[in-house]
């Protein structure tokens, strides 16, 4: 057991750190052109789509270097490596795995160059967690599919260029996983209408998307007709180590400790209060658990051993931390905690935003089913 990276890997870490110290000015010293330049620079380094094959413009980066890159970026509080989170997280990998050569050429460079952003048309009004039950219909008409139906909770739809869309091309299959087809749809397609939804924090990041006789060329189908479920599964599974998230949570914990140091509770420093101390220590411990869980799972990947559904462990830990840390910070501040324009209002705002993370990635109850059924082997519901 050791926690050392190889000299080559450490050299890579040094490279990343040096790049960051040269190219990432403090938040309040960044010029207006910063983000565009940042994206160009990290692209030039080959760090966008770092794990993708060189053939499509990636860097064939190995698992250890991926982890190092993620960790250093998160530690430095760096902006994302591209403008399309979903494009990099699963649309790109999906196209690389299932796309035609033509599709790879057409879509991958734009994702890497941050020229387009993608959204994900999975959820429908009546089928939140149950993806396989989708009803949005795609009929083949000549050289295109005619799409009718509705998606909902489509994050980023109000400002996306493209959507990866799950449709049903066959309603008569025995198994509902069959008959699903995956399409890549320009958001400007006639018949595609986006209606933003406001969430409880007042943000409008997600939307309903309506399809009315929207025509999508056949060459925009990803994978075979009726085999879209495989594409989806591989996309959902395309999550790697949670090392970046852990670093983020650690940063948040440091901020929370700072809040504690600056707060008073019942007329005394909050940091002296044993109940406050215990709560912070529990957060610290859970985050450490996420970190070392992540390193154990990373080690398995490095050894080429397959991961089962263990990533659900860190998802559950993160879900509870996301809810509890904000909630604690709001409560600690008493009447000040419930205000949205104070110096520390980030906690109040963030306490209204946890469902993005907690529900978006599969509800905690779904994660518990996954662990119970796939890891512990308990009977299905």
């Amino acid at each position, binding site marked *: 057991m050791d926690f050392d990276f190889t000299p080559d890997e450490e050299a890579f870490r040094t490279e990343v750190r040096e790049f960051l110290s040269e190219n990432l000015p403090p938040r309040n010293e960044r010029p207006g052109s910063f983000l565009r330049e940042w994206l160009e620079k990290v692209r030039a380094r080959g760090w966008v789509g770092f794990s993708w094959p060189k053939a499509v413009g990636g860097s064939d980066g190995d698992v250890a270097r991926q982890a190092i890159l993620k960790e250093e970026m998160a530690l430095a509080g760096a902006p994302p490596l591209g403008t399309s989170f979903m494009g990099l997280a699963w649309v790109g990998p999906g196209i690389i795995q299932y796309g035609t050569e033509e599709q790879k050429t057409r879509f991958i460079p734009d994702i890497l160059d941050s020229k387009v952003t993608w959204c994900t048309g999975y959820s429908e009004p009546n089928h939140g967690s149950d993806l396989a039950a989708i009803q949005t219909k795609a009929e083949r008409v000549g050289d295109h599919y005619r799409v009718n139906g509705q998606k909902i909770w489509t994050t980023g739809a109000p400002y996306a260029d493209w959507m990866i869309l799950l449709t049903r091309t066959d309603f008569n299959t025995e198994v509902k996983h069959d008959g699903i087809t995956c399409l890549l749809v320009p958001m400007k397609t006639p018949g595609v209408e986006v209606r933003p939804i406001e969430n409880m924090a007042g943000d409008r990041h997600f939307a309903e998307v309506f399809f009315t006789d929207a025509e999508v060329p056949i060459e925009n189908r990803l994978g075979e007709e009726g085999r879209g479920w495989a594409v989806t599964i591989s996309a959902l599974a395309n999550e790697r180590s949670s090392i970046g998230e852990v670093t983020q949570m650690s940063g948040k914990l440091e901020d929370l400790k700072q809040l504690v140091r600056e707060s008073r509770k019942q007329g005394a420093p909050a940091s002296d209060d044993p109940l406050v101390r215990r709560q912070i220590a529990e957060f610290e411990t859970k985050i450490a658990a996420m970190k070392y869980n992540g390193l154990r799972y990373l080690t398995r990947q490095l050894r080429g051993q397959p991961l089962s559904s263990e990533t659900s462990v860190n998802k559950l830990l993160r879900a509870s931390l996301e809810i509890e840390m904000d909630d604690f910070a709001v409560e600690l501040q008493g009447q000040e905690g419930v205000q949205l*324009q104070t110096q520390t209002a980030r906690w109040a705002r963030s306490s209204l935003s946890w469902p993005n993370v*907690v*529900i978006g990635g599969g509800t905690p109850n779904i994660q518990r089913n996954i662990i119970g059924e796939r890891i512990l082997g308990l009977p299905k519901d």
Partner: protein
Amino acid sequence: MNFGFTEEQEMLRNQVVRFIDDECSIDVIRTFDRDTNQALWKKIAELGWVGLTIPERFGGSGLKWVDLTVVLEETGRGLCPLPLTSNALACASILRSGSIAQQQEWLPKIANGSVIFGFGLYDEPNWIDKDAITLEASDHITGTKTFVSDALLATHVMVGVQTKNGPALSIVDGEAINSIALDVMDRTKPAAQVQFDQVPATNDRFIPLTDADLDYVNSCGAVAVTAEMVGAAEAVLALTSNYAKERIQFGHPIGKYQGVKHRLADMFVDIESFKSLLYYAAWCVDDATGDLSQAASRAKAHASDAFAQIGIDGVGLHGAIGFTAEYDVQLYLKRAKWARTMFGDSDFHYNRVATLGGL
């Protein structure tokens, strides 16, 4: 032995429910403002709810906090923004600690709705203690009160001050002060920062607070907020149970799954519990003042944490729809965050329960 409501109290409850349905539905409260408040306030003053706990000789209904609890449960269920709690506390303070002259001056005006109070006790955001009242008052008041509930809806405010004789509540005209709305998460519980600039203060505007008086008014505040929490928590449970019966996932209503069903059952257990604790505390306000501190602390401590979790799980069990702005359940989550620390969080109240229980 009669630990339940009377027929009259059930009639009162029905009356409040009808009023909320007809006049103060969720649509109304989403755009609630000072004008809406004043129009509705007139109506509920006529219905006698404003002066519910004011003796008949001062123009009130001469009822008790148990009756007030019925009203607050239902206004809480509807997230009604009317400043009933602030005014109930103003009444309770004047009745307990005010002079006869003050009672004669203010209580009839509260009862008939011509005076509406905003209410703000402490100056530190998370400290329940006489030392947490720091705004100083002599023959005038200058300074800032950082968190005054309902100040912008009201004609007057009643605020905690330190006088040379110790803590007191001061009654101040709305016109003499500058109230700046706070951007609060729960818009159905508006609050303001109130600035006092050489506001003249005569003796008849001060209600002195002994330690026991302050304990009493804080306990009354805890009881009132808990009453609102009972109604609001029941609303979350009803919304979520109904959703669980209708929402189909993987071929079944989600309420069939124990992951949902058992959480809802636990909500029921929690609500039954803090409801029972509340009813006893409300009864203590008038009929067993010696037990009030302990009873109020038990109810508020339990409700603070339980309702906070009910708000979160109510949203969570709805899935994505639960946290859209247009859906109502998220409004209750915001209410839970507001209510959690008002008049003391669970740490404060549980510690008091331990002390009063002999530790």
